[in-house]
């Protein structure tokens, strides 16, 4: 039984359909890669699960519950942009998470930030964009959430930072939780994926375990992605 389920979910923005009758899920204890080109509906899916959007039709469930305050309490969401207020100090951000999330491990977050060389009194506005993103990732991964939703955590970062982000995800991720990571940079993330969902034009085109996919297609997930989305040709 999947912990996060989408049942016949459609999301329409005006006349544009972002998700079309989507049915899929993510299981607890597994890392699911949400893979697809830009505009395929990945962010919309994660926003629906995070409770930031309402489906036009169909139903999203997290642990059997419709997204709301109860699900937000056990869902750690990392958006694809910096959402920390610029006037915040690092300590303010830690305090906010500690105040509102019971599953937040403040000591773990402080340790992760210290490893990055971020002082508690350092302002978010004084950090580089990459550092702001890392701060946000540390805060998200310092939670013992039941569901992690990571939206493009590898977007626009250098290879060294990608390694840092992936190792932070693996170290921070609690084994019993469901983790959904959306990306179109598959090469780096492939090694940590248990399951993959290929998304195109708001529809799931492939849904399988990464291992089974590699065995049956004789290719890496990255290779299959390029094949499915016809990106191999110059």
């Amino acid at each position, binding site marked *: 039984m999947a912990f996060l389920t989408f049942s016949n979910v459609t999301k329409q*923005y005006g006349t544009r359909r972002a998700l079309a009758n989507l049915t899929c899920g993510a299981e607890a204890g597994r890392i699911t890669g949400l893979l697809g080109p830009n505009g395929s509906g990945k962010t919309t899916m994660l*926003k629906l699960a*995070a*409770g*930031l*959007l*309402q489906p036009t039709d169909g139903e999203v469930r997290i642990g059997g519950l419709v997204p*709301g*305050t*109860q699900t*937000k*309490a056990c*869902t750690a*969401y990392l*958006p694809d*942009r*910096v*959402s*920390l*207020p610029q*006037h915040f100090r690092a300590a303010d951000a830690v305090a*906010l998470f500690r*105040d*509102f*999330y019971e599953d937040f491990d403040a000591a773990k977050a402080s340790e992760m930030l210290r490893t990055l060389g971020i002082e508690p009194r350092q302002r978010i506005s004084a950090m580089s964009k990459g550092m702001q993103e890392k701060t946000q990732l540390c805060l998200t991964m310092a939670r013992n959430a039941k569901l992690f939703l990571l939206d493009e955590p590898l977007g626009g970062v250098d290879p060294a930072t990608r390694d840092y982000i992936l190792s932070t995800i693996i170290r921070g991720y609690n084994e019993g939780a469901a983790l959904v990571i959306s990306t179109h940079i598959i090469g780096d993330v492939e090694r940590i994926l248990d399951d993959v969902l290929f998304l195109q034009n708001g529809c799931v085109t492939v849904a399988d375990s990464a291992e089974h996919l590699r065995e049956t297609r004789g290719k890496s997930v990255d290779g299959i992605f390029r094949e499915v989305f016809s990106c191999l040709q110059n």
Partner: protein
Amino acid sequence: MFAKLMKWEFRQTARVMLPLLGAALLLCGGGLASRGVLYVLPLGPQWLETLSALLYALMTFVLFAGVFVAYFYAVIRFYRMLGNEGYLMLTLPVTPAQHIGAKLITGCVWVAAAMLFSLLLPGTSFSTVITSSDEQVAAALSEFWPGMPLYLSFGLFLLAMLFLSMMWMYFICALGAQWPQQRFGATVVCYLVTSFLVQIVFVMAVGVFTYIAAYSPLGASLYNSFMANPTGTLTVWMLCASAAVAALTAALFFIVRWMISKRLNLA
């Protein structure tokens, strides 16, 4: 969670408002001290009088700035919540109603505090009370007390208007956020259009009210009751107006809550 959110909102807004109100208090203290010296030494130096006047003028400026800052900072915080900060704030385990309520109450409390300071602190520049005799103070109080219900109802009306105007700005922000790609421009246009519509409605309402007051039996009866008991009638009018304003604020609150929970798409 609401208590935590309130605490958080007050902590965040206090960082801007406390220095402003503190500066006003300091300036007032300086003004009072210099006046005190002048009171003891009636032939004090001219520069001390100038300093005292300058301190009070500065204080008045800081206080007015405080009211504006308190109001617009509350609106800006709400506007920001519907942008990038929304990805953080709206994923907290808190309902949209609690978010709106916490921001509304915090914003109004700071504006009311700044207004109260603006009313009370400049009063310290007048030495009337200090020099008045006990009889004069007693006479002033005996005139003041009978009007108390009216003053309170007027205060309630002002408070209700403050909540309504803040909620109105939140409504405009939420309306502008329905166009996430051009949110700022959309918010400005929404402000201009809705303000224009409200002014038309207001002018029409004034016209209807004037007609009723001048030509209908209801107007005559209202006039008679006002002439018979001006303070009591005005108090009732103020209370009725406050209730109407509160109802309007509640309606806007539910509309904004619906927009945020059902219609919002953060850019």
